[in-house]
């Protein structure tokens, strides 16, 4: 677990308020078509608003959004962000969108008040999702935002819900194997 990198350092990609998940983040047809494979989703991240985004972004880049980001409890866009190694910082997002992002293992922070007012696309940002530290190196601005709740960090460290379940199952199997034979049913 110690290898997981909670701190991201990269370029800012700033978006406005009320960006919906369908269309604003990823084309609706991929949501309706129930595409969950990152290989299918990555080429289409922000495709309707910024074609080619997935080729220009780099691991560590941070998407900073305004209020009410990603409406809809869908995971597709966050799967693509996670696969690209991006982070997400939002002024606010509907809770179920936040839950979907956590479930995909995306490094995400919400309730970051006025975050879009202290950065521009292209700024050099450094975000520590474990403690909520936000640094804009380009503008020499520092903020401290609400970090992820402790209980959700493990899900993200393990790559999301599926990774969490995989570990849970492996731990249970290991415990069963360690149980003396006479104690088993």
């Amino acid at each position, binding site marked *: 677990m110690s290898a997981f990198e909670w701190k991201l350092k990269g370029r800012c990609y700033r978006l406005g308020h009320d960006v919906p998940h369908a269309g604003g983040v990823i084309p609706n047809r991929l949501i309706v078509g129930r595409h969950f494979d990152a290989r299918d989703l990555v080429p289409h991240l922000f495709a309707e608003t910024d074609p080619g985004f997935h080729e220009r972004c780099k691991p560590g880049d941070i998407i900073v959004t305004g209020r009410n980001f990603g409406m809809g*409890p869908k995971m597709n866009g966050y799967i693509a962000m996670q696969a690209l190694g991006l982070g997400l910082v939002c002024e606010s997002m509907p809770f179920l969108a936040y*839950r979907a992002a956590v479930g995909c293992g995306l490094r995400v922070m919400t309730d970051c008040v006025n975050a879009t007012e202290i950065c521009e696309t292209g700024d050099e940002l450094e975000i520590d999702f474990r403690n909520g530290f936000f640094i804009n190196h380009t503008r020499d601005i520092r903020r401290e935002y609400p970090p992820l*709740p402790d*209980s959700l960090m493990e899900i993200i460290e393990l790559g999301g*819900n*599926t990774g969490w*379940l995989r570990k849970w199952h492996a731990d249970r199997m290991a415990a069963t194997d360690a149980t003396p034979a006479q104690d088993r049913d």
Partner: protein
Amino acid sequence: MGMTAVEKVLALKSGVKSVRAGEVVEPDPDFIMIHDGVVMGAKRELDALGIDRLAAPDKVLMVTDHDVIYGSARAAERGAFNREAARQWGVKNFFDVGRGGHGHVFPMETGMLLPGMFYFDNDRHATNAGAIGAFGFRMGSEISRVLATGTNWVMVPKSVRLRIKGRLRPGVHARDLGFHIATLVAQGKLDIDLDYRVLEFAGDLDQFNLAARTALCSSPTEMRAYGVFVPPSAEILAYAQAHATRPFTPVYADADARYEADAELDVSRLEPQIALPGGVHKAVDLSEVAGTAVSHAFIGSCGSGMYDDLLTAATMLKGRRIAPGVRLFIAPGSEVSTRRMAREGLLQIFIEAGALMLPAGCGPCNDAVIGPVHSGEVSISTAANNNSGRFGARDAQLYLGSPATVTASAIAGRITDPRTFATG
């Protein structure tokens, strides 16, 4: 400082003295519900991880309500898959085709879901539990974690309170009130945010029976409420007691509970409402669209599929026929209701009126697996919502009304005030 209803239930089920909105807990549910549309995804996910046993198969309710009559080979294949999944998982509470009905209706009617309970569900319409004074939380695809481990993390939602003042007039239904509340919230005229909130009702609630309380849960859910709670009245407690399959303890908010918002709404002058195509939050007085011709009508869904809703429709239809050119679908919420309708003559009334009886379940209000609308058609129904394409062509016009309004409109062939019939 006291707790709201949801805080009290989640504290109780999480084994702690108190919780506050924003805390993360892992409650131990009274049961776990999964419907026919998502069993395949959950089973395949767990199988791929090597997880072949559920944490608590005795707590699992599998319900077939979304696609009851297989209209395609794919649906039949899914039904077969689900039956095999139930067998492999050891799920005994498997309410397959013809066995239970709508998963958000029949557990309340049959005393499985009782006041004070908490359960996990894959589906967001689990909010209906609030009608009987319980909570059901939507997990979406994360229901697989609940199945495997018995629980999942929950962030305790904030609660908002709406105090109802006055009585609805005759001919005005709780569903009308639901559309009205959604519209006031959307327009900012009720200063409450419903996103991931629990909407707790208060005030003059004794006028609402279980069916009406179920109707009240519907529209806030479409406005992204995560829970709705109607504190159980003496009538509701008596109903629960009479049907209970196990002991229960009702839960009420503390008098000094803290709410994010506290609003009041006088309902005594409310008119029958029509939700215009595009959302439950686009409601207007029925008089504004009266006379609009319709060709498709539907009574049922999680919002209006209780026996009393069907009784309202049958009472109006008795001795009448629906208008030429209109097809009216009736989808009871439960097999219990279907049997009672047969015993009490309601089925006869519907059939003689020219309505089409569907099996208990979601009816057309699920991806149009049955009874869809065609391009350009105009529909009026009690569906959970009327978002574009909800049950058929995206360019169809989907209006919503109360069961009484839909019935009156099906008889007249155009959107009609139900009081027209009530007053003769």
